[in-house]
């Protein structure tokens, strides 16, 4: 049976958008040398805050704005703990995820069963958030590769002691990056509640934050790679359901596994290339996950 590739691509764009937002945000955070495993927690916070605001105001745009603010706000607890109190980034990030899931389960009760306002359609029948997500890819790339603040951010991520020695504000750079990551994760989460499901449900991000984290590694900290990774994950999910709907007998379990198999495959390819190929060092920022203290 034939499946129209264009319609799969259109569905794919929608399925990829939440993880594209979250992964782009996390990419900037990690390029600044901070590992924030709280993406899932920030996404679910954004999903609830965005839905609540969109429902109250009737405007999805306001919803996404609120989601960005809420995501950034909870990411600031992570920033305060890891950048000022020098707590362990892995443990703090995990705590942020658990905190976000619990908090939203509690405050989300009154919103269950309500409907989201209609999304604003954009060009070519795709909503504006899909376009914004795609537009962010070159913007993030341009910022990191072509601007002075982007260069400083990368310097902070590669060697925070050297950056500090040159007089760059390591901590301020990282706090700003964490806030940006939180805002994008919040918007990604809100896409799920406002555009995909059109309602709020507890735990509705269902692991999207973890996929976003995997995609950053998959992409080797490159924004274009993030776009490819998000489309791959979104594409396999959508294709799996489409094949079923078209009546093709493919074992669903195998299809559901496919994105993860693909990730492992790409990781193996990348490490093989590093081992046998030209590039010696990995693409991971050298100071990733290491706490920074100016007086050390």
């Amino acid at each position, binding site marked *: 049976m034939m499946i129209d590739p264009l319609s799969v691509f259109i569905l794919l764009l929608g399925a990829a958008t939440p993880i594209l937002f979250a992964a782009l945000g996390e990419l900037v955070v990690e390029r600044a040398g901070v590992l924030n495993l709280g993406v899932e927690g920030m996404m679910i916070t954004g999903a609830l805050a965005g839905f609540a605001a969109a429902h109250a105001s009737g405007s999805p745009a306001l919803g996404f704005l609120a989601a960005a603010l809420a995501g950034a706000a909870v990411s600031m607890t992570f920033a305060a703990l890891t950048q000022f109190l020098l707590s362990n980034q892995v443990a703090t990030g995990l705590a942020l995820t658990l905190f976000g899931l*619990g908090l939203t389960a509690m405050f989300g009760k009154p919103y269950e069963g309500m*409907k989201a306002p209609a999304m604003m359609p954009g060009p070519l029948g795709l909503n504006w958030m899909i376009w914004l997500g795609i537009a962010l890819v070159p913007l993030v790339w341009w910022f990191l590769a072509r601007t002075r603040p982007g260069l400083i951010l990368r310097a902070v991520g590669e060697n925070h002691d050297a950056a500090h020695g040159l007089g760059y504000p390591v901590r301020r750079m990282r706090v700003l990056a964490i806030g940006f990551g939180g805002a994008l994760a919040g918007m990604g989460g809100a896409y799920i509640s406002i555009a995909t*499901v059109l309602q709020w449900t507890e735990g509705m991000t*269902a692991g999207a934050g973890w996929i976003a984290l995997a995609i950053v590694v998959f992409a080797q900290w490159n924004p274009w790679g993030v776009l490819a990774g998000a489309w791959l994950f979104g594409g396999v999910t959508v294709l799996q359901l489409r094949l079923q*709907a078209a*009546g093709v007998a493919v074992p669903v379990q195998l299809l559901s596994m496919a994105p993860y198999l693909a990730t492992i495959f790409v990781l193996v390819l990348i490490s093989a290339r590093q081992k046998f190929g030209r590039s010696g060092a990995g693409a991971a920022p050298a100071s990733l996950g290491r706490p920074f203290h100016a007086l050390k």
Partner: protein
Amino acid sequence: MKRRTLLGSAAALVASTALPAFAQEEKLKVGFIYVGPVGDGGWTYQHDLARQAVEREYGDRVETTYIESVPEGADAERAITQLALSGHKLIFTTSFGFMDATINVAKKFPDVKFEHATGYKTAENVATYDARFYEGRAVLGTIAGRMTKSNKIGYIGSFPIPEVVQGINSAYIHARKVNPDVEMKVVWAYTWFDPAKEADAAAALIAEGVDVFMQHTDSTAPLAKAQEAGAFGFGQASDMANFAPQPRLASIIDNWEPYYIKRVGEVLDGTWKSQGVWLGIGDGEVVIGEITDAVPAEVKAEAEALRDKIAAGEYHPFTGPLNKQDGSAWLAEGQTASDQELSSMNFYVEGITAPMPK
């Protein structure tokens, strides 16, 4: 989910250890284990309505507790044990996947009575209850077959278990009866409740040209998707009336209230016995919600006539001649399927081209 379960159980434990000193008249504590949140607007919501009906009916004589969003699997056993430990004498476990957990806990608490929904394992202190959803599906299938313009109807399945397969077959048989050209597309979501996945499944069906679909998953997400795309769907488990008239054409409602009230009453007066019941439209356990004005009057009348014939016991949705998907004979002319055949149904009927998952 787990955290809330913990909190809930901690509260229940505190209550159960602190209260006996003040115990006035012994209240019957009735516990409920839900697979989704009560706010799902579907399956769990209906069970919770029935729980509230029990409270209204018996007032001070009963006290009810529920634990929601309990995952099927090892965690379920823990949650059921908590209810049993905290003095609940009657426990309703409301999802197929709680079957083994219910049986295991029941062995450890012989003086606690258990009611397991949609399963097939009973014990001295474990009864099962189920609804003949396939009767309602026959009515929805009739409406779907009449309403589709693309001649493609869809079905979002949860897991390929007999209960769901019966529904797909019943819906298809009756859609084909009124529209011989109809095709059935099936997507398995492999979850009872995951709004994002259910929405994606609905989107996949719509992209495949389906314009009327049914669902056997618990959330309202597929209806929200249908609304956006201009397709039609049906309220599932609950009326989902706030999606009427478009996309919700009608609904298949699980009405557990009469059964819950009856069984709690039996525990109160000491006449409760283990049993396995399977009730349908005629018993008021499966209800067809209001058919909206989007459905032409003659189709509505046709669907209601079918509903009434099933309720009166004059018609069985699985009446021969019917063949299996592979073309082999199943039911001869006029023969009806036995309950035993239905409760182990693992094949599609002839005409459905979708492959049955292994």
